[in-house]
């Protein structure tokens, strides 16, 4: 008996320590923001801007940044969050399914989307391989760098941009899938994430990097010369934000969410390369972006895109998805 109790004593001490530690609380309202990595620099300016408004006076933030899928899983597993900012809608849907984000999160005039961007082609200086169209990507001798869509949720935008661009040019579903096969024949490596794809491209591998316009613009702003081509047909990337049920209990969290669609915050997002979603800001000369001939979304039904839920299953299911066959041979 005595031996058993001594054996478990350290466990008891540990448990007691955890309970005591959890009681250390603070007085001021602290909101937890859990976000994907790219908008980190934007939030670094938006949060102080919010804190200088009347609504944000007594609010402080804890911030966590990481890969969108990892962040969603962390919140799903219990990481405390009042507000989540993720790179694509399915990561929010994961949290809706778990009952952490209310199902009406996208019932506002922006459908829950706080920033936009588009898929572009980053090319080598002077565009030596003369890459201008989606067709150019499948020419022999062209190497395309894009992350593995099975390891990078964000890379799924690239795949759907490629598919949708074919449909927008009048191709059939089958032709568009054949295009994906040809495209991925020109993909020599499959980096795990968008960040790693950028590293691989920077290391000298490949002729074209499929990425987001905001990443290319931001690199240029930071002084890393990045030449890119906006294709005639591309997908509109929309990044969601949502309050968790926890966050809904705090009026400050609601105020912060509203602030993200204010012209001040939208301009700060714009400064880091995103396309603002607020019309008044998007129209101003500084944040005006060229509009491609055909700009479609993940919900462009006429192009066979029926929203993330359908696309996830049809293209990215881990055993039966179209992309399993496109990549795995």
């Amino acid at each position, binding site marked *: 008996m005595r031996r058993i109790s001594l054996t478990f004593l350290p466990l008891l001490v540990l448990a007691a320590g955890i309970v005591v530690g959890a009681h250390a609380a603070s007085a001021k309202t602290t909101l937890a923001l859990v976000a994907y990595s790219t908008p980190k620099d934007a939030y670094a300016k938006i949060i102080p801007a919010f804190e200088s408004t009347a609504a944000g006076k007594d609010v402080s933030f804890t911030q966590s940044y990481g890969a969108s899928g990892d962040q969603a899983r962390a919140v799903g597993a219990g990481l405390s969050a009042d507000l989540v900012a993720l790179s694509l809608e399915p990561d929010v849907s994961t949290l809706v399914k778990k009952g952490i984000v209310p199902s009406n999160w996208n019932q506002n005039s922006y459908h829950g989307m706080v920033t936009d961007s588009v898929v572009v082609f980053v090319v080598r200086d002077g565009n030596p391989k003369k890459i201008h169209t989606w067709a150019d990507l499948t020419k022999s001798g062209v190497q395309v760098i894009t992350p593995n869509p099975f390891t990078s949720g964000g890379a799924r935008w690239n795949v759907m941009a490629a598919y949708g661009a074919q449909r927008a040019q009048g191709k059939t579903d089958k032709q568009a899938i054949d295009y994906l096969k040809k495209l991925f024949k020109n993909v*020599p490596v499959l980096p795990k994430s968008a960040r790693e794809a950028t590293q691989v491209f920077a290391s000298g591998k490949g002729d074209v990097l499929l990425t987001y316009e905001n990443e290319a613009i931001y690199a240029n702003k930071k002084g890393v010369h990045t030449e890119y081509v906006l294709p005639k047909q591309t997908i509109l990337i929309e990044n969601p934000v949502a309050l968790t049920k926890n966050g809904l209990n705090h009026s400050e969290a609601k105020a912060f969410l509203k602030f993200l669609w204010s012209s001040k915050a939208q301009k700060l997002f714009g400064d880091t390369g995103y396309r603002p979603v607020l019309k008044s800001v998007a129209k101003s000369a500084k944040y005006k972006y060229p509009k491609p001939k055909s700009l479609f979304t993940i919900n462009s039904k006429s192009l066979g895109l029926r929203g993330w839920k359908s696309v996830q299953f049809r293209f990215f299911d881990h055993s039966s998805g179209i992309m399993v066959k496109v990549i795995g041979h």
Partner: protein
Amino acid sequence: MATNPAVPVSRPGAVANRAGGALARGIAVGYLSVVVLVPLAALIWASRADGAATFWDEITKPEAAAALKLTLVAALVVAAFNAFTGTAIAWVLVRDSFKGQGMFNAVIDLPFALPTIVAGLVLLELYGPNSPFGVDLAFQRAGLIMALLFVTLPFVVRAVQPVLLELDRDMEEAAESLGARRLAVFRRIVFPNLLPAILSGVALAFARAVGEFGAVVLISGNVPFKTEVSSVYISGQIESDNPTGAAAVSVVLLAISLAVLLAIGAFRHWRTRHDR
């Protein structure tokens, strides 16, 4: 025979304060449970979540099987290579003396100190398409092996070094004075004493190579059936919302590592018995 610090032998006869012994054992068991056993049990539990048939399907999927095979072969190659280079480096550090030896000794542990993703990035710069030496190993199996060699370097060196330091030089000198050649002295006297330490280093290097993620994820290119290792495959399954598949492959990796560690442990035990 020289005592071998790398082979701790339990001493059943050791008498200590009984209550103190139980407390120490309690701390050891409690700590091991919290840090290792409980997470491993949870992992095995997760892998069985959808039944044994699903478990089997998950680990025999062509892509999963190819990744497992590549991981094991790469880990074996790396472990074997380390057995030679690690012993040689330890030898040089102990038996040789040269300028900058202290620095050389300190550098050995650097692969542990560096975040592995940084190691991957550095290797990609040095041995990628823009290599200053004109050596492009990136995005092929050679690059994968190189990254694994980098992160596993310290294991054998650090296992062999203390044993070599403790080794009684008198024996070697006696053998030499009796006319044995240098090679024979190494083979018959030094090597048998080093073998347990070499094996323990090799086992750790193998286990580390099986599980390595950060260092290989950039430089290997992650192409399924070509350069995708299991750790990268597992991360893909998690991102694709297939935690059962991820857990199943992890359990296989774990079982293999455990089997190797146990086998080497058993071999060492057997040798220690026969030496005495």
